[in-house]
């Protein structure tokens, strides 16, 4: 019997990561683009571009971000195709269809909780045939599994399209244990772009530039340093100070995140609430916002205080969790989960 490759995939709205049992790990931007016309195809010399390459060449592409706002749009063939291309690309990166045959791959795919809530069947069908066996789980659950944080823990996964909350109670999370907000990294980008445009109407700024600045300089609370970036103003590269705008934009996510966190906490059985409060784990790119865990801990003081930890390796935390699930799933279960 050929060697089986287990993989964990974090299919995110902004970035997708893969961790494989052969030790390979990769991350790509969750963008898929097809050349707009024959000229673009000739220039790009490719049928489809994925990840950073797709973003860099976006002017020549029909660009898709398949899980925007955490959902796979039902009925959108291009988005389904984009998910399939993204998965195939990730698998190719770890050697599938090179040295390893797709029929020997067992994959756990973590998706935003909102995508699972709306249509599991559709999501599953759209991934059909790419690997031998497929287990789809919610992303915060994969994170919790990978960290052995399955009991009295809350995962707050701040991604690009959604912020997913999940309270782990020693069981597979149900609807009641999870919440999803569409206020996340993308909404910060939108807000930041708006604020910069208001203050510097002459500056020519795109959402892609804003996203890059946010990833480098985001913070809440007191600024760690001035945020000065370069943007073209009437075509001339000019330094602009966006410290205040960055803070305001990043802080927009605080009220809804705090409210949802506390709302989930008060639904935990009273005797376990303190343990959950002291076991809150921030994951996802949004967790990189400086000062966020302190701000959340401050907010928790109103309900008795708590501890918010941020994992140092947010990029692979979900895919590593998925890989752990894939390896732990019994052989008999994989046979039933044929994709």
């Amino acid at each position: 019997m050929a060697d089986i490759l287990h993989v964990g995939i974090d299919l995110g709205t902004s970035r997708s990561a893969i961790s494989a049992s052969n030790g390979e790990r990769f991350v790509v931007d969750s963008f898929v683009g097809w050349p707009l016309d024959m000229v673009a195809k000739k220039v790009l010399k490719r049928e489809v571009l994925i990840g950073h390459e797709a973003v860099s060449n976006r002017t020549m592409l029909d660009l898709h971000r398949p899980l925007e706002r955490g959902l796979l749009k039902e009925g959108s063939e291009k988005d389904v195709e984009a998910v399939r291309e993204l998965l195939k690309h990730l698998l190719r990166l770890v050697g599938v269809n090179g040295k390893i045959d797709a029929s020997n791959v067992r994959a756990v795919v973590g998706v935003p909780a909102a995508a699972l809530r709306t249509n599991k069947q559709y999501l599953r069908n759209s991934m059909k045939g790419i690997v031998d066996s497929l287990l789809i789980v919610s992303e915060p659950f994969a994170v919790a599994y990978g960290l052995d944080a399955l009991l009295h823990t809350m995962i707050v996964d701040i991604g690009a399209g959604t912020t997913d909350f999940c309270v782990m109670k020693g069981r597979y999370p149900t609807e009641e244990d999870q919440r999803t907000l569409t206020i996340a990294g993308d909404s910060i980008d939108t807000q930041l772009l708006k604020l910069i445009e208001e203050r510097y109407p002459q500056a020519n700024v795109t959402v892609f530039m804003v996203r890059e600045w946010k990833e480098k300089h985001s913070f809440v609370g007191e600024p760690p340093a001035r945020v000065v970036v370069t943007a073209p103003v009437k075509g001339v590269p000019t330094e602009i100070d966006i410290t205040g705008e960055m803070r305001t934009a990043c802080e927009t996510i605080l009220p809804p995140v705090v409210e949802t966190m506390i709302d989930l906490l008060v639904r935990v059985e009273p005797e376990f609430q303190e343990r959950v409060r002291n076991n809150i784990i921030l994951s996802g790119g949004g967790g990189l916002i400086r000062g966020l865990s302190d701000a959340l801990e401050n907010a928790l003081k109103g309900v008795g205080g708590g501890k918010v930890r941020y994992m140092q390796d947010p990029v692979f935390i979900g895919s590593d969790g998925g890989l752990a699930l894939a390896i732990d799933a019994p052989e008999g279960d994989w046979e039933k989960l044929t994709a």
Partner: protein
Amino acid sequence: MKAARIERVKRRVLREAVAENLDVIRGAHPRAVRPANRLSRIWLRRAPYLLVPLTLAAYLARGSGGEAAAPVVRAFITTPAALRLPLAETTTSVERVTSAAFPLAVRRVVLDAGHGGSDPGATAARVSEKAITLDIGHRLRTLLEREGFEVIATRADDRTIALKDRARLANDSNSDIFVSIHVNAIVKYTASRGIETYYLGPTSDPSLTQLAAAENRVSGYSLGDMRKLLDGVYADARRDESHELAAMVQQQLFTTLRASDPGLENWGVKRAPFIVLVATDMPAVLAEVGCLSNEQEAAMLARPEYRQKIADALFHGIRAYASANDGPKKKGTPNHG
């Protein structure tokens, strides 16, 4: 010891994750959100609220020589299916249980922009119902999300979606309320223009049957499905909730829009068997927010400012309903079944 416990929990959650995926492969409803289970859990959790007053009512009825209350008490405490009694039985035997006994907070709202794709709905010179409902839906979504509601839209762009799929999306998303947005057209009476809001119920008005038939065209359900859906559904527990929501939406729509259009009539809150109201599990209403067959109103509906006013009115109606049902949230009581 701790490690052994973690391993045990890991095995259990993994087994549950696999079981959920196998349910999906088999086409079964996900374990955590099977509608019947969900309703059962709501009923079980609320049973004490019901048992005390109902038992008391039954005792008093027996004491005064009445026998009628006993079967009703049995019906309420068995299963949710027992709720599907003929309307007369549930309303006459004992004092009705009001929606106040089920104070479930509203967090997730399904917005259903009527028609779409190959089904334009009603049309006028420059506008179609599908475009108007979609635009109002977008505007309403923004308002609701800003207020902290989670919003699920049955369609985000111009596409054909069967009513069955709209209802399925609403049910699978475990949402709290369902609001369907439509625009009327009364070709025989083009001088009329008004606002009306529907909730699920039988109607003896042939014009409403005709309207429901028109709106139910792209349903995706078979006759067999319909029989199952309609079996006793009119008497189910969410009827009162739907009526309350419809009343609040209608009031806001009429008072807001009347200010812009003094000739607008209040056609009130009505009952009709629209499919999206029949097949959804949660309190559901269908608002006819205008009348395209009236030339003056068609011109107003073509204006973005007027559509924003409609979205504002719908938002205030939904928020009023949510506020009225939000009691336990502040005390930290679980609200979701």
